[in-house]
């Protein structure tokens, strides 16, 4: 456990350059600076490793990097998405706090591979401590000549800047992040064009998640195959999971892909005494809820979770036991998306408010029997019709909560109170 991105977590002075180098950090970067590692070789290793984007979409990182027109004239950028705002997720925060140099090295390698000489790390606005830690690490890297122009006479150039967001969830959407980085209002762009062609300031840009970048140095130093073998087919390597909710020891756990959910639950101390598992949101609040029985059978990898009816997402496991009122939980989630919708496109702007208001009415004891079908219909009209994935994210929990726990919603509507005693 905690072998790659979180491997410094128990060390003294975990975020320092000395600690990082002690663990073998910047070896890959030095190899690159000495001209001993070609971009092609790096891409090959990444593809072998099976590393998939850790931000939630799970797109193969090596493939993504190969889309960049590296030989095209003009400025190109790499951007790290550290706007970790998905409810239930907090592992990128720990990577920035405890292992910032892995992100720096990962981004520098990405810059080298894609011929991008400038990188930005966009850090969630509330992450003051991680931001300062990252800034300190950045200073160390510059002071020791690891970054800059023509680094150590290698002709390799890479400048890295961090940028603190301003508290909007939507800025975690990669194109909204770019808008925000450009100083504009954080609103997603429509695609195509994709950032690889028209990204930051209109230039080719690759955006990866913090954990993705942090995994790269280790993959390259120990080999793609080594990493792939840690996990299972289609889900190479390890993954950080943030386990929260009704468990005894909520925490971040970096474990091999394919680990059974039940093992992860044990790592988190299991449920509290006398409680039974009701449901699990496996990948952050945007991913569908999985009822207990199915959850206990799944393993923590892309395919298995998809088979269980949800998504691995950002690896944000929210555990709910039998004291959880599903109506209340869904209403809270609906309020979150209603509040965070950027308002740009119609279905999300209008639909999130509609869903929240109906749920709120049910909570207030004013529910009507047709409300559940109305909610299912409204979420269905949002899904797939919006500019970005926030619309889908807002819709999917509604669908899964009502489908799996319909009787609980019906009870609430009929009796004006929750079926779950302790919460009602």
């Amino acid at each position, binding site marked *: 456990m905690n072998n790659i991105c979180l491997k410094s977590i128990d060390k003294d002075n975990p975020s320092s350059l000395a600690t990082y180098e002690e663990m073998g950090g910047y070896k890959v970067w030095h190899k690159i600076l000495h001209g001993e590692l070609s971009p092609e070789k790096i891409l090959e290793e990444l593809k072998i490793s099976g590393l998939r984007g850790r931000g939630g979409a799970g797109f193969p990182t090596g493939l993504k990097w190969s889309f960049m027109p590296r030989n095209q004239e003009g400025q190109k950028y790499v951007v790290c998405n550290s706007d970790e705002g998905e409810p239930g997720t907090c592992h990128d925060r720990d990577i920035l706090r405890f292992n910032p140099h892995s992100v720096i090295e990962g981004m520098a390698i990405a810059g080298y591979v894609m011929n991008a000489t400038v990188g930005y790390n966009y850090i969630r606005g509330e992450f003051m401590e991680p931001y300062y830690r990252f800034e300190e690490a950045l200073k160390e890297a510059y002071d020791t000549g690891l970054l800059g122009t023509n680094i150590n006479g290698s002709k390799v150039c890479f400048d890295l800047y961090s940028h603190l967001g301003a508290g*909007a969830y*939507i800025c975690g959407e990669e194109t909204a992040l770019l808008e925000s980085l450009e100083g504009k*209002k954080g609103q997603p762009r*429509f695609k*195509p064009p994709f950032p690889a062609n028209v990204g930051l300031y209109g230039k080719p840009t690759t955006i990866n998640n913090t954990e993705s970048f942090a995994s790269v140095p280790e993959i390259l130093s120990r080999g793609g195959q080594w990493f792939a073998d840690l996990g299972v087919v289609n889900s190479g390597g390890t993954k950080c999971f943030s386990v929260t909710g009704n468990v005894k020891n909520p925490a971040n756990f970096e474990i091999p892909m394919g680990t059974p959910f039940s093992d992860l639950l044990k790592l988190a101390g299991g449920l509290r005494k006398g409680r039974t598992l009701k449901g699990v949101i496996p990948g952050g609040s945007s991913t569908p809820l999985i009822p207990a029985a199915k959850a206990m059978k799944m393993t923590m990898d892309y395919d298995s979770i998809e088979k269980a009816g949800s998504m691995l997402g950002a690896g944000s496991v929210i555990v709910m036991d039998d004291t959880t009122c599903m109506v209340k939980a869904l209403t809270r989630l609906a309020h979150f998306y*209603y*509040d*965070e*919708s*950027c*308002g*740009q*496109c*119609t*279905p999300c*702007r*209008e*639909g*999130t*408010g*509609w869903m929240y*208001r*109906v749920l709120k*009415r049910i909570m207030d004891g004013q529910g009507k029997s047709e409300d559940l079908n*109305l909610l299912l*219909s409204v979420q*269905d*009209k*949002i899904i*797939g*019709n*919006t*500019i970005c994935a926030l619309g889908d994210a807002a819709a999917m929990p509604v669908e899964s909560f009502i489908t799996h726990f319909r009787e609980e919603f019906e009870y609430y509507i009929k009796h004006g109170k929750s079926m779950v005693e302790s919460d009602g």
Partner: protein
Amino acid sequence: MVDIEIEIDGKVVHGHSGENLISIADREGIEIPRFCYHKKLSVAANCRMCLVDIEGNPNAQPACSTPSSAGMKVHTKNEKAKTAQKAVMEFLLINHPLDCPICDQGGECELQDVAMEYGSNVSRFNEGKRIVDDKGIGALIQTDMTRCIHCTRCVRFGAEVAGIVEMGATGRGEDLKIEPFLSEGIQSELSGNMIDVCPVGALTSKPFRYEVRSWQMNSIQTIARHDLVGSNIFTQTHKSKVKRVVARDNENINETWISDRDRFSYQGVNNENRVLIPKIKIEGEWQDTSWDDALDFATNGIKKHAKEGSQFGTLASKNATLEELYLLQKFTRGLGSDNLDYRLDASNPYNAKVLESNISLTELETIDHALIVNSYLRLEQPMINHRIRKATLNGASVSTINAKAFDFNYRISHSVLTSPQNTVATLSGILKALLDKGSQTLPDYLNTVTVHQTHIDIANALLNAKHPVVVLGEHVNGNTCSDQVAKLVSEIAKASDAKTLNASLTGNTHSAERVNFKPDNGKNALQILSSDLTAFALFDVYPNFDCIDSENAIKHLSRDDAFVVAMNSFDDESVLSFANVILPIASFYETSGTHINVDNIAQSYSASVKSAGESKPGWKVIKVLADLLNLQGFDFTDSSQIADEALSLTPSISEIEVPINNSEMPNVTTVWQYTPYASDVVVRHASSLQQTRIGQMSEASVCKATAKLLELSEGDFYKGVPVNINESVAEGCVFVHTHLPRQLGVV
């Protein structure tokens, strides 16, 4: 771009690779509902109404932002597409007030139209609807933002076309509001176009509010007459009144936009200050009379006071129609006079042939450098300025030589502040710099000219450009060396291989030039108003505003031995003081006519409404006057016959010599510019335009040094206009920008 074949609704159609599906569909006449998409604005893809089914794609995709690729199969009306479109429609309507019965957009509302096909007859939304505060954005645009569907067309119009970012989307989610960033209201001279682009009733015309339902009006194709462009418009009329003016597409002239002046000036025509009945002055007293008596009175007066033709002079408005100008010059010359002019605001009426335009409106978009001389082009000629702005968006640079630094809607790379008395020297410097670069021999008048670095910078900008243009604007008219300025601009253009655009003479001056409405050997406007002529015809002339030396003009026309026939559309105190007879004539939209624009395109139009009161179209009045005076060649029964005759004439093409001698000028000069909403008599009477920030402008700007010289301080009035001391003005001049008449300044 590659020509590709795609299939839309089973029909094989062609497009360019990467072209948006919606523009291919539009070309093919395949209807796709939309709100945010507008052919002249950037794609936003935010309304989601144009979702269509593309085979192989799990989700419906917006036709506006999806690039086409060969072999694509698109369905715009199958179940998947319709389901997506209806979903969006439902979302758009849940918070819309559905107050169509009291909405001015009703009947011409895109939301209403699309809802007919894609909406449901029952709302499933039973929660409270959103209500949005209205901040108010000025006198022209009425806001009802509760109706807004957040398509951002107005926002994009401001940022992309008007070039002044005024509206924006603030807040997020359901609280997203379209509103101005600043509380000062909208300031663009093109703001009214936001009404046209708004697909719902959120932005409607304020002067038109609750006047009449849109379907009760007739729409008549006509031409806007205020500027050099002749924008294509529809007048929308009800019970013989123009109720509204909207833009009419003409890609070569105004594209799809019109200026606020063209849109809202119709209010002037409906103003109560119109002359409705013929009037004669007997023993100093005005009395209303019949047309017959008035015409007799006029012709007898002319016969009596102008025994010889040379005692007669004619002045006409630059906004008169081609037909009116042609007949009026024929009338004047028929009486044996060559004293006629339309250049009333000129200190030194120069011949327009000194500097002729040779660039078209569409060509202006392709320039890579513009040198703007003596012009606040944005306010003078909004649509011409818009073309130059489009060029700047493609990388063109702009330099200016002006008496004041103006607020353009593009960046100015070189700006030279030059007073009128130094303009000839500045232009000579630039010409010398240009000729030096080309190692050409200098004409004598350049020998003593000093070349400054700024002159070299501008010369370089012109020489480095592949398609430069030099534009001359209105301020030159007040310059006593205007002919030399025009000549130098022409020489600069020759030396730098630049095109020229003469925007100094606005309105319908191309018609006036075409019919030679200026003296060959007789007296020009200034001379007519200062020599011993005894009979005058004034055609829609209001000397206190229109004449450069208004005080002297009025004094001269008020002489006891002067007989003045005023053909006027508006009542005017000063005209009443000196005229002997007032014949009421039709105003804009009340007469048929022809406007010749800067591209020399003659656009004819018919009357939209009948003329007010007993007023008659100007050409008919002139024709009857000519008949009564037994002049030959006035057998016209229709204005189109006049236009045909006028346009069959070939204008003379004689070269005009203009010696450059930098004649002596005063130490301090005045540049007097009217706001665009005081540029002619119709717009001066348009009340809503007068209430805008542009309309209210009244400021005599002067720099510290000059203010000291003139002993002016803040709070003083210069020629009746409040003084503003700032350093944006060239030394040695006062720049007056106002809606107040010149005459006021004298008092």
